[in-house]
C-alpha cells in the first residue's frame, strides 16, 4: 500500500541588521566568543530590552514578500525554559499575536506541477547563544555572541507532500528573502535554519498522522535526505505494526540517518505570556503601505518581465533571476547596447562562472558591452572574445579593444590579407579542392578551418567563406576551360 507524506517547515532566518534585536551589540558573524555582548543580551539584573526598529522593518518586508497579512498590533511574549545558552531563562518571541499571518509561496514542485504552499505565520524573536563542546576538554563553554540576534520564524502549513517539495519550498523561500534584502539566508553561517515536521498517512485520509520533528540539517540537500530517511523510518514502523511516536530527531549528515534526541523536548511547557518589558508592537497602516510600496521586484515578477521585455526563453529568464544580482547585471549589459539574447548567453556562460567563483562581477557591464560590440562588428571572433573576457576579469580597468590587440586577437577582415590566406589554402590542398568541385560541399568547413589556422585565428570567418566560394568557383571555371 502507498503512503502520503505530509511535511511542514519552520524556518528561522537572521534579519540583516547591524545590531541585535533588543540591544546595540553588533551582529557580525565569526567574532571571538562573547565579544558582542552587553548587559541586555547577557540578561544582567536590571537590564531591559528595547526593540530594534530595523529588525521590525525587515521582518515586515519579509512578511509582505510572502503575501502575509501584517497585524497592526503584535505582542512580544516570553518563552520560558532553562538552558545554559539562554541568559534570561526565557526567549523573547511572539506567540498568540504574531507580526504576520496567512501568506503563501507558489513554486514548481516537480511531481505536482505548480503548487501553492500556505504560510501560517511569521513572527520576530531573538536568538539564543551557542554551546561549544570542543573548546575545553571535558567542559562545555557558552558563547553569547548570537544571543539576541534578530530572527524571523516562518512557519508553513503542512502542505508539502515530499522531501523534494520541501527542498523546492526552501529554495523558493530563500530566493524571495534574498530578493527582499531581509536576510543573507546562509545555512553555513547559521542565518537560515530549518526544522521539519513530517508525518505519513494513507492517501485520501484527511487526518494528520503523528508527526516527528527533524532538526540539524545544514543544507537544503540534507533537509531532503533527512526527510527521506525519516519517511522511510515511519513507513517501516507503521508497516511492522508499531505506532509513530511524537519525537524530535537529529539528522546525522555522515550516516544519513536520523536519531531521537536524548532531551525530553516534547514535555516542554514554555509558559508563554506577554513580555511586560515591551509594550505591544503597533504599526500604522500607512507605514505598512510604505513598506509594501518599497518592496523590490520579486523573483516571479522579474522572471515574467524578463521573458516579456527581452523576448527571452523561459529557461534563460529563470537562470538570470536565480539571484537578483545576476538579473541586474544582465539588464545593465542590455542597457550598454547589447542584444538581449546575446547578453543572456554571455551572462549565463562566462559571467556566471566567474560570479560563482568570486561572488562578484569583476568585469563591469559597460566593458562587457564594449567587448560584445567588438564581436558584432567583426573585429573579434567569439572564441577570441572569451579569451579577452578571461583577461579582463583579471585586469578589469583595461579597454577590451586594447586587450584584444595586446593578445593579438583582433580579427582581420581586410580583403587582401584574407585573399592571400585563401589562395594559400587552395593551392595547398588540390585533392580536397577537386573533391569539393565534384560535389563534396561539406568540405567548405575544412577550408574555413584551414584559413583560420593559417591566420592563427585572426581571419574574420564571416569574410572568409564568401572569398573561398568565389576562389573555388574561379578554380572550377579555369579547369573546365
Amino acid at each position, binding site marked *: 500500500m502507498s503512503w502520503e507524506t505530509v511535511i511542514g517547515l519552520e524556518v528561522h532566518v537572521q534579519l540583516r541588521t547591524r545590531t541585535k534585536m533588543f540591544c546595540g551589540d553588533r551582529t557580525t558573524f565569526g567574532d571571538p566568543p562573547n565579544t558582542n555582548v552587553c*548587559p541586555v543580551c*547577557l*540578561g*544582567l*539584573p*536590571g*537590564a*531591559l*530590552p*528595547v*526593540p530594534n526598529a530595523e529588525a521590525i522593518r525587515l521582518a515586515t518586508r519579509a512578511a509582505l514578500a510572502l503575501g502575509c497579512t501584517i497585524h497592526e498590533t503584535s505582542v512580544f511574549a*516570553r518563552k*520560558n525554559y*532553562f538552558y*545554559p545558552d539562554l*541568559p*534570561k*531563562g*526565557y526567549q523573547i518571541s511572539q506567540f498568540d499575536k504574531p507580526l504576520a499571518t496567512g501568506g503563501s509561496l507558489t513554486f514548481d514542485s516537480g511531481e505536482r506541477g505548480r503548487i501553492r504552499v500556505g504560510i501560517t505565520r511569521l513572527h520576530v524573536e531573538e536568538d539564543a547563544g551557542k554551546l561549544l563542546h570542543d573548546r575545553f576538554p571535558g567542559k562545555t563553554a*557558552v558563547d553569547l555572541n548570537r544571543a539576541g540576534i534578530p530572527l524571523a520564524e516562518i512557519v508553513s502549513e503542512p502542505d508539502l507532500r515530499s522531501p523534494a517539495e520541501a527542498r523546492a519550498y526552501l529554495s523558493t523561500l530563500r530566493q524571495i528573502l534574498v530578493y527582499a534584502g531581509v536576510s543573507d539566508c546562509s545555512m553555513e553561517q547559521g542565518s537560515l535554519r530549518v526544522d521539519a515536521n513530517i508525518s505519513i498517512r494513507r492517501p485520501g485520509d484527511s487526518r494528520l498522522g503523528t508527526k516527528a520533528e527533524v532538526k540539524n540539517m545544514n543544507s537544503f540537500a540534507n533537509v531532503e535526505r533527512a526527510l527521506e530517511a525519516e519517511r522511510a523510518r515511519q513507513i517501516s514502523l507503521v508497516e511492522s505494526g508499531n505506532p509513530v511516536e511524537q519525537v524530535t530527531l537529529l539528522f546525522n549528515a555522515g550516516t544519513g540517518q536520523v536519531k531521537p534526541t536524548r532531551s525530553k523536548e516534547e514535555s516542554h*511547557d514554555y*509558559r*508563554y*505570556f506577554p*513580555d*511586560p*518589558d*515591551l*509594550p505591544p508592537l503597533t504599526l500604522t497602516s500607512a507605514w505598512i503601505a510604505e513598506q509594501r510600496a518599497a518592496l523590490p521586484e520579486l523573483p516571479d515578477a522579474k522572471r515574467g518581465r524578463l521573458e516579456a521585455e527581452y523576448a527571452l526563453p523561459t529557461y534563460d529568464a529563470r537562470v538570470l533571476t536565480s539571484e537578483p544580482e545576476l538579473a541586474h547585471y544582465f539588464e545593465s549589459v542590455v542597457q550598454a547596447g547589447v542584444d538581449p539574447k546575446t547578453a543572456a548567453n554571455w551572462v549565463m556562460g562566462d559571467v556566471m562562472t566567474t560570479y560563482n567563483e568570486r561572488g562578484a562581477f569583476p568585469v563591469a557591464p559597460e566593458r562587457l558591452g564594449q567587448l560584445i560590440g567588438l564581436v558584432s562588428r567583426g573585429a573579434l571572433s567569439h572564441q577570441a572574445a572569451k579569451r579577452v573576457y578571461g583577461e579582463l576579469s583579471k585586469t578589469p580597468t583595461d579597454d577590451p579593444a586594447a586587450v584584444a590587440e595586446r593578445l593579438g586577437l583582433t580579427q582581420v577582415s581586410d580583403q587582401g590579407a584574407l585573399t592571400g590566406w585563401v589562395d594559400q589554402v587552395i593551392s595547398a590542398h588540390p585533392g580536397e579542392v577537386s573533391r569539393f568541385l565534384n560535389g563534396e560541399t561539406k568540405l567548405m568547413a575544412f577550408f574555413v578551418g584551414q584559413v583560420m589556422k593559417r591566420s592563427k585565428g585572426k581571419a574574420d570567418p564571416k569574410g572568409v567563406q564568401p572569398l573561398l566560394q568565389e576562389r573555388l568557383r574561379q578554380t572550377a571555371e579555369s579547369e573546365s576551360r
Partner: protein
Amino acid sequence: MNGAVLGGAASIAQETGKRLAAAESLNATLHWSQDLLDAEARRVDAMPSPGPLAGMPLALKDNIVTVEQPTTCGSRILGDYVSPFNATVVERLRSAGGMVAIKANMDEFAMGSSTEHSAFGRVRHPIDPSRVPGGSSGGSAALVAAGVLPAALGSETGGSVRQPASFCGVVGIKPSYGRVSRFGLVAFGSSLDCISVFGRTVKDAGRVLSVISGPDPFDATTVDRPPMRVPEPLSSLRGLTLGLPREYFPSDLHAGVAAALKAMIDRARELGAEIREVSLPHSAYAVPTYYIIAPAEAAANLARYDGVRYGLRLIGPDGDIRSLYRATRGQGFGAEVQRRILVGTYVLSAGYYDAYYRKAQQVRSLIADDFRRTFASGVDLLLTPTTPTPAFRSGEKTADPVAMYLADIFVCPINLAGLPAVSIPAGRSEGLPIGAQLIAPAFEEERLLAAAAALERAIPAEAEVR
C-alpha cells in the same frame, strides 16, 4: 540638609556617616562606606551647578544597581554581584547633585511586607525594635524615619514603599507606572514595578521624584511625558473633591487607623475639600489578582539566576547542569522567593493559564476601570488608609503568608491600576505611626502632591490620635 546651607557636601557626608553608624542596630543598610560618601561629596562640591538635590544624601534600595557597590536584592543568590552599569535613576540623582553611596536592606527580591525576608537579617522599626518597619523597602523607610537621611529610593510592586512609609511615619510616593525608568531596577513584577521615593516631607520626596522622572530610551515602558514638577502646597482644598472608597474603610479597621483617617478627613473638609463616598468594588480582588500576576512575572524574571554567568554557583551532587540549577536556586533563594516562583510557574502552566493568569489580567482591567470611572465622575483624588493596622511585631505574620499579603490590601490595587499615590503621616496610635493614602489619576502627580503637602501641614505627624 541642603549643601549650600550646611556649608558643602563634604560636611553633610561626614554627618551622614555618623548617623549611619549610630543607626547600625536597625540593620537598615547593606553597603555603605565613609570613603564612598566622601567621594560623592567631592564630586558634588566640584560640580559647577550642583542642581536641585545639591548635597542631598540618598539611600537606594539594594535592588537598584550601581557600579561602586554590590547589588544583592537581599538575596544570597546574587553573591557579591556588582553591576557593570548604573541605573538610570542613579545617573539622574547624581547629575542633580545627590550623593548616592548607601544601599538599603530589603525583603529578598522585594518579596515581603515586613523586611523580615532578607538573607542579611531583618530590619528593625526605628520606634520599636520589636516591630517591623514594613516592606519590602523597609531599610530605606527606616533610614528616613530614623533621621539618617532626608530621602531614599525604594521600589514598589504591590505597595512596598507606601506600606513601610505608613508603618514608619514618613512620606512615600509611588509614581504612575511609566513615569520613572526601571532601567537598573532588578525586575520582580515588570508590569507593576515602580521605583518610588521616601521623604521626611512631601516636598523632599517630591523633589527627588521630579529629578528621577521622565522618559528613558533604555526602558520601552516609560511614557513620553516631561519630568514631574514639584508643586507648591495648596493653601486651600476648595474646589477639590476627595473620594472615600467604602471598600477601603471596612468595619473591622484598626481603631487607631480609623481615628487617624477620620481626623484627616475632618482636616480636609476644614480646608475646603468636598468629601464624597465612592465605591471601588473590584479592589476586593486586588490581593489575589496581585498574587497571580506578580509571581508569574517574577518566575520569569528570576529565571536568570541560574549559576551560569554570575552570582552564586553551587555545583550540586550530580555535576550536570540540572544539578547546578537545582543546588544554586534551591539554596540561593529564600523560602518566600521560592514560594512565589512556584506559584508563578503554576499559574502560567498549560491547562492553568486561562483559569489563573488570563483571569487575573481580566480582573486587573476591572480594578483599573473602577478607578477610571470614579475619577471620571468628578472625583479629583481618593483618600484611604495606607494599611489596615500600624506596624506589627516581628514574627507575627511570618508563619502565615496570606496574613502577610493582606498587609498590602489597600496599597496593591493602585499598583495593578498603575496610578500615582502617596502615603503621608496621619498621626500616631499608641505611639505607632499611621499613614493616610491619597490616590490620583494617572500622571496627575502634581495634583496629588500639592494636596498631600496641604494635608501634611494640617496634621501633626507625631501627635497621638483618638
